[in-house]
């Protein structure tokens, strides 16, 4: 079976078993190893990618369901050659990353969450990341950084708004 979808902005055609988990294609065919295959049960969140803008576990996504979809991995969020996503930059500035295993998934989950919930409170941020497990237990620093990032975004937006008025 042939499945065609967009991967990090480029067309991609897959010809193999349509029940192949997306995470395996990313890592084994495209060497996009930022997406981690850890629990393979949808519990840990380390394999989270965006499919049509939604953060989903790629370990449980058979490629056959992706025909016509837009898939973005952590590498597609920013190649590292240009400016980082604001959340990535905030994590770097706050030195929030510990071992880094969970972080691509954290960034993919929380970047989509921040886009959809710019006014989120601390409790809502925590609820949004319950599917992303960190064995280093660095949750509070991650939450702090997301809170700061959203505050900065709000202040920037308000300033821009007041200037427009």
């Amino acid at each position, binding site marked *: 079976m042939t499945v065609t979808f967009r991967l990090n902005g480029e067309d991609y055609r897959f010809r193999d078993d349509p029940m*192949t988990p997306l995470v395996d294609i990313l890592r084994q065919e495209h060497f996009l190893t930022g997406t981690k295959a850890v629990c393979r049960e*949808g519990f840990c969140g380390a394999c989270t990618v965006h499919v049509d803008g939604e953060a989903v576990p790629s370990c449980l996504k058979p490629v056959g369901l992706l*025909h016509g979809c837009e898939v973005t991995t952590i590498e597609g969020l920013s190649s590292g050659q240009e400016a980082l996503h604001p959340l990535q930059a905030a994590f770097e500035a706050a030195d929030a990353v510990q071992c880094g295993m969970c972080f691509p998934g954290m960034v993919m989950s929380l970047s989509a969450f921040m886009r959809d919930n710019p006014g989120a409170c601390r409790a809502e941020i925590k609820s949004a990341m319950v*599917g992303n497990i960190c064995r280093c237990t660095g949750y509070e620093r991650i939450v702090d950084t997301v809170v700061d990032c959203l505050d900065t975004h709000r202040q920037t937006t308000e300033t821009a708004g007041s200037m427009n008025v």
Partner: protein
Amino acid sequence: MAQSVERSFTVAGSIDEALAARQQGAAVLAGGTWMMRDPLRGVDLPEAVVTLHRIPALSEVEVDPDHTVIGAAVTHAVLGRALRGLAGFEALVGAAVGAANPGIRRVATVGGNLCTLDFAAADLAPALLVCEAMVEMETFDGPKLIGISDFLRDRPTLLADAILTKVHLRRDLIASAHIRLPLRMAGDYPVAIVSIAVDKDKRFRIAVGSVEAVARRWTALEKALADEPGGFAPNPERAAELAAENNDFHGRDGTEADGWYRRQVLPALVKRGVAALLKTEGQA
């Protein structure tokens, strides 16, 4: 990486196409959150699969004043957003937004939740039981409508020659609540689930999931509440007492918890459920 390039994978564009594939022996692939874990359980993925996600009518939630229809391919996340704020659907919304984790909820579907035979901890099952939902199926002999209790009980037989297409709900509840007991905040299956609702005739409906292999109504407790002198005036403590007196569940042993524990926590969950109902009614 791939198990087989010869696997049959039908992306159905219509119910008829899906049913035809089903008739040829294809398994229905919903969100994939259960089936994709088959290899971890030592189970081979099906050789033939049919998906429903490209059938537009099955991905919609229709909300009318008296009647709500939920397509089988609607995800938990979409369901939660569609019904949020509608009086009476608090339990169903709670089930949709509280199950598993956010990533799974964006993928896992209503149909998958109800049709996965060996998934005892399905959150939507008890919530739909207290709604007294009707399940619409497409069979080789035409469409069929069946009550959710009968569906859950008989689904191994029913689903042999049918596809669940929609779930129908009446708007006859005043308030409802969905109480679940996971061992952690997220990422594990709930030890026990209690959905509780009160309808326009002040009749209480209570359903339990995850304690036994299949979710069911707690009819003994419903009767005990109805038999209270003057009718049951919602009181969490009294509800818990009656739950303890009428606990007729046989808890299943599992990796998360032993059966006795699942059974033992039910009165406490009923107490929380009635307290949540009181809070909801107070806000109405």
